[in-house]
């Protein structure tokens, strides 16, 4: 990508620079900018993805509370609707939301949140590594695929991007972002910049030194990339990444995921050209003492739902531009194991949140009774929906990628999109 510095500075970036100097409220200058400059990057559609590493137990997150077969298979883990201490949220008379996902219930009731149940990969691997690899490269069963599906999606957008087009709030570049489209991977946006330990005042001078040095470099690649980098650093300073105050009512948990989603919200609201964001949450591999209303599952669910709910509130008027989708590599066994946990399974569920989502519904197919004969390999929630059909619909519709490009987004896949967007 030959990102044009001038186009970027003339677009949203410049608006922000003047806003921060002149004290004009951001949203006003943004609106003015968008009105005056049709080339501005402002208000791009943004797809935010969260990978739940470790395989979330979809049957606990969104539980078929009437199923006696599940109750029998999980004597210690089944959650009865009638037990008041469970505080389940009945979604549709058949499924209920785990209490720690309660912050998502209002979004479901408002019709913004959709759940797809029984989703997973056509490849039967129960290895975390293989399944995550396949879900991120988008080619189940084929390991050699060099690129990630989100990078390919970005390549199909058909317009220029800024350095913030594709951002992963992760420590290392995620597999889904591998490919020729440039991405930024950074654990914490506050650390994106020149850092002089114990002497932050010196950082500016060192930064200027490097900037001048690279600007004069005959190595054209690093000359260009450094120019982008220093512009990006400057922009992050202007949008106030260090002292960002979320919108009123947005209470992010003080955790890695909370911070990461908060920073994604900031990027969205700052019109820096973000279009695809990725982050992740770990610890879903609940083999031991999974728990119900307390325990390892509950802690992860609580962090995740509070983070997402805060993110959504924080977006404010930007909600129209954003769709958030979760994913996990597979589900867990229907039966609990001997350590009061669950083992690697097949189907799980995922969440899609956005104003253009066919929400307030549980999509997909889950057997009426989770008896052995109804299970995949007689042990797991069957995969009834190919994750690619959901990803293609969400990314395709939200980012305006034509159906004819689905084969480029997911090489080797010729299925139909699974309708989860309106």
């Amino acid at each position, binding site marked *: 990508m030959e990102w044009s510095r001038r186009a970027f500075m003339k677009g949203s970036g410049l608006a922000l620079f003047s806003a921060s100097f002149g004290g004009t409220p951001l949203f006003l200058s943004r609106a003015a900018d968008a009105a005056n400059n049709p080339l501005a990057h402002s208000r791009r559609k943004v797809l935010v993805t969260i990978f739940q590493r470790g395989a979330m137990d979809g049957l606990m997150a969104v539980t078929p509370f009437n199923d006696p077969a599940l109750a029998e298979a999980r004597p210690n883990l089944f959650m009865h609707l009638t037990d008041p201490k469970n505080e389940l949220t009945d979604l549709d008379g058949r499924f209920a939301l785990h209490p720690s996902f309660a912050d998502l219930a209002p979004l479901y009731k408002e019709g913004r949140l959709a759940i797809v149940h029984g989703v997973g990969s056509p490849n039967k691997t129960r*290895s975390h590594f293989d399944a995550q690899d396949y879900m991120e490269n988008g080619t189940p069963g084929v390991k050699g695929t060099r690129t990630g599906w989100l990078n390919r999606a970005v390549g199909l957008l058909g317009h220029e991007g800024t350095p913030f087009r594709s951002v992963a709030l992760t420590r290392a570049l995620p597999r889904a972002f591998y490919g020729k489209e440039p991405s930024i991977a950074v654990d914490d946006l506050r650390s994106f910049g020149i850092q*002089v330990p114990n002497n932050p005042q010196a950082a500016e001078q060192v930064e200027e*030194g490097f900037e001048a040095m690279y600007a004069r470099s005959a*190595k054209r690649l*690093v000359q260009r990339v450094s120019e982008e*980098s220093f512009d*990006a650093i400057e922009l992050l300073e202007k949008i106030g990444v260090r002292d960002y105050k979320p919108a009123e009512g947005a209470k992010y948990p003080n955790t890695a995921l909370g911070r990461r989603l908060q920073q994604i919200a900031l990027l969205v609201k700052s019109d820096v050209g973000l279009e695809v964001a990725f982050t992740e949450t770990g610890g879903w591999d609940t*083999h*031991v003492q999974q728990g119900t209303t307390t325990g390892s599952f509950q802690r992860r669910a609580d962090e995740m739902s509070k983070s997402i709910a805060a993110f959504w509130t924080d977006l404010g008027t930007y909600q129209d531009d954003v769709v958030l989708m979760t994913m996990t590599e597979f589900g867990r066994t229907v039966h609990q194991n001997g350590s009061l946990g669950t083992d690697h399974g097949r189907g799980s569920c995922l969440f899609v949140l956005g104003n253009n989502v066919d929400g307030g519904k549980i999509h997909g197919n889950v057997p009426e009774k989770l008896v052995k004969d109804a299970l995949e390999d007689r042990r797991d929630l069957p995969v009834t929906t190919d994750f690619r059909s959901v990803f293609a619909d969400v990314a395709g519709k939200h980012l305006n990628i034509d159906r004819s490009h689905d084969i480029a987004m997911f090489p080797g896949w010729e299925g139909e999109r699974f309708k989860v967007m309106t």
Partner: protein
Amino acid sequence: MTLRFALVVLCCGALLGVAPANAELQLPYKAEGLSKEQAAAYLLERFAFGARPGEVEKVAQMGPEKWLAQQLAGNLPDAELDKSLEAFPALKMTQAEMQAIYVQNGRIRRILERQGVIDAAKMNRKEMNQKISVYRKKHGLLAQNALYNKELRGQKVMRAVYSENQLVEVLTDFWFNHFNVTTRDGGARSHVLTYERDAIRPNVLGKFRTILGATAKHPAMLYYLDNAQSRMASPPPRNQPRPKQEVASGEMGMDGGMDGGMMGAPAKAQPPPKNRRKYGLNENYARELMELHTLGVDGGYTQGDVTEVARVLTGWAAMPYNNARKNLEKQIANGSKRLIREGEFVFRRDWHDKKAKVVLGEKFPAGGGIEEGERVLDMLTKHPSTAHFISTKLARRFINDNPPEALIERMAKTFRKTDGDLAAVMATLSESREFWAEAKKRSKMKSPFELVVSSLRALEADVKNSQPMMSWFDRMGEPLYGYVPPTGFPDYAESWANSGTLIARMNFGIHLATGKIRGIELKQLSQDSTGLTTDEALAMYSKLLLPAQDTSAIASEVKESIPADAKRKEVQVISMLLGSPEFQYR
């Protein structure tokens, strides 16, 4: 060696137009306008991980030809390194010993559950962990991730910084990446140390066929690309197909690469499926064997060849580590004809597809066994596409991102004539005008690993603990042993330089110079030195970091960026030089 045999070797060498190993190398650096010092500095950037203080002069004095010949022999004594490697006990263990000592909590917990020491229904996690750590202490067990996070990564850094056999380390980095596997794969991770130690490093200056065979048979590759579970496709199962077992489930069960929040291993191994045999061909290894390891993507094979090679390789598996191991060992001891064991590799005739096959037009009659796979590896080694593909990748690493085709052709010719002698191919490369013409351009971007190691060598780092440094590799875009796809890290500048990683490179230099990377002390930076002026510091450190080069332009830029009243100017000088565009290239 008898005289007659020696003559035959010499004659063959002469006939083939290939220099025998003992012939003097001809390095045309003078023709490219380089002094001996410049040639030495260039060699140390390309065939080593950069120069240590005084090393350019040393190499120039002994002669670049002699230095390179030593490197191509790869057998200099390495006492200092060997001593520092004693900190990594796994390096001296067999795979089976490692498997017994480096174990996950989950495995211990299952043992304790069976013994009734742990009761998951009654104990909280803290109590369980306490029981586990008592058990660890009693039996001298170490954490499994110490094996691949601490020892594997640590030894890589130590060897690269301190080994006298620098070319062996550079090539180990290259060939590991060529035959990539990763510790992020739960099945492969505990085998990656022996993979590099046994399959890669000893073979980087030998025959290509040897390294190809060693990787093909190593459990790390067998698990990573699934050949360990590839079996004949039929007959149709009588029952419902069984799930794939969580491959040696004790070894999996991590959440696959997320940076935190591991919950430990599976509580219980899956109940063993009644029908253990799972039929089904897996083509992953067969495909990458041709596409990535030998022929190259346009190397002249078809999807049909992929399937046929996968069938040839059915039964190429790894010795398991659960109860099945004892069972197999017993069968082998009893002289079973169904099993052929070589170390941790095992050929299982009962999994092998015995029907006839056709690979790249050659017929394989029905009833074959392990020799079919060996024959395919021979064929692939001899195939002209392999010579060309390997030469291209080596030239890209050692010359530039778009190496000249004429040189690749000459390297490929050497490859073909020497039966894939990798040292001979490197000699051809080093003797080419094309190689030396690059010296003044310095157009090859350093990988993050090369950047770090060249910094540590130039500043004479005393690496007491390399662990605090590891996260820098992640930030700069090269998590060690952490590249997931089988391609390995792409070897061109665009893939290393993006907005995030370039800034991380600058920050790495600052942190190293200011002593903020724990575990590392720079001997070339005296801790109490306060006396250097900017000019003195520039004179000293530009010579160390960018030896035998004209550094006047960069020196004036660095000077501009340092205020006259700055304290410890040498620290700032080093920071700026390490982060400079010049130092990102070799």
